[in-house]
């Protein structure tokens, strides 16, 4: 008899427990899901900010000779022609120094790396102007120019 009551109580508690697990979780899980969802959204936003910041940093970071940063170029597609399809728009996004189609005509001097130095010279405008004022114009006083 006693055994039967204990068993009945256990069964009742199990039933009650099942009911609570079956009913209560609706609200509990909803709240939990909200919290997780909010956390995920917040985490996502934080991640977006981090990614945006990383991209911004990447764009501003000067290119350095580092094998870890070697990338497979994406802005040429291979058609078999000598110079394949050019996409300078992608090159501009890539950012190295200068854009992908920086015209060498815009530079008049290349630093001679082997010599480790170069002479930058300019017109001594003051001396030229003084000479002109004194009536003895000198067109150019750069070294090597008579």
């Amino acid at each position, binding site marked *: 008899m006693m055994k039967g009551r204990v068993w009945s109580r256990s069964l009742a508690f199990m039933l009650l427990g099942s009911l609570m697990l079956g009913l209560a979780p609706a609200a509990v899980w909803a709240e939990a899901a909200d919290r997780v969802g909010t956390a995920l959204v917040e985490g996502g936003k934080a991640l977006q900010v981090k990614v945006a910041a990383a991209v911004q940093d990447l764009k501003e970071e*000067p*290119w*350095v*000779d580092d094998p870890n940063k*070697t990338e*497979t*170029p994406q*802005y*040429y597609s*291979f058609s*078999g*022609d*000598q*110079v*394949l399809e*050019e996409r300078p728009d992608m*090159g501009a996004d*890539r*950012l*190295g*120094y*200068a*854009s*992908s*189609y*920086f*015209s*060498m*005509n*815009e*530079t*008049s*001097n*290349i*630093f001679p*790396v082997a010599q*480790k*130095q*170069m*002479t*930058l*010279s*300019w*017109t*001594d*405008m*003051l*001396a030229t*102007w*003084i000479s002109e*004022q*004194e009536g003895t114009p000198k067109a150019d*006083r*750069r*070294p090597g120019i008579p």
Partner: protein
Amino acid sequence: MKLKEVTTKKEYTLLSDSHASSFVWKGTDGSNAPLPDGFYYWTLEADAPTITFIVEEGKEPVPKTAPAYNGQSQMVLLDRTAPEVLGVHPLGNNRLAIETRDMVGGLKKVTTIGSAQGSESWTTSPIRTAVAVPAG
């Protein structure tokens, strides 16, 4: 005399208070620290001085303002980094694509030497190129 990197716009003073008309640049900033590779503009800045000329004996000196040095500038490419071969890709029809790059000054010419030779040159100096050559 100032130096400005064209991409970062960072400025360096190379020379100040000088009467020289040339400067030996070693690819360094004003404190002799090596500068990173890139395109640089050097420019001159100077206040326009007022100079007094005595035109004739006994007459008042004539003050005149000399020209400043503005407008004198030049672009210089500082490129210590060698170009790279990024990869070789089969194209089919017994051809290969050779990918190369020079991230600083760009590429001017790519030559392949083997059983079959090929060469391609550019005036636009692309930073990355892929040149198709016979596999040989």
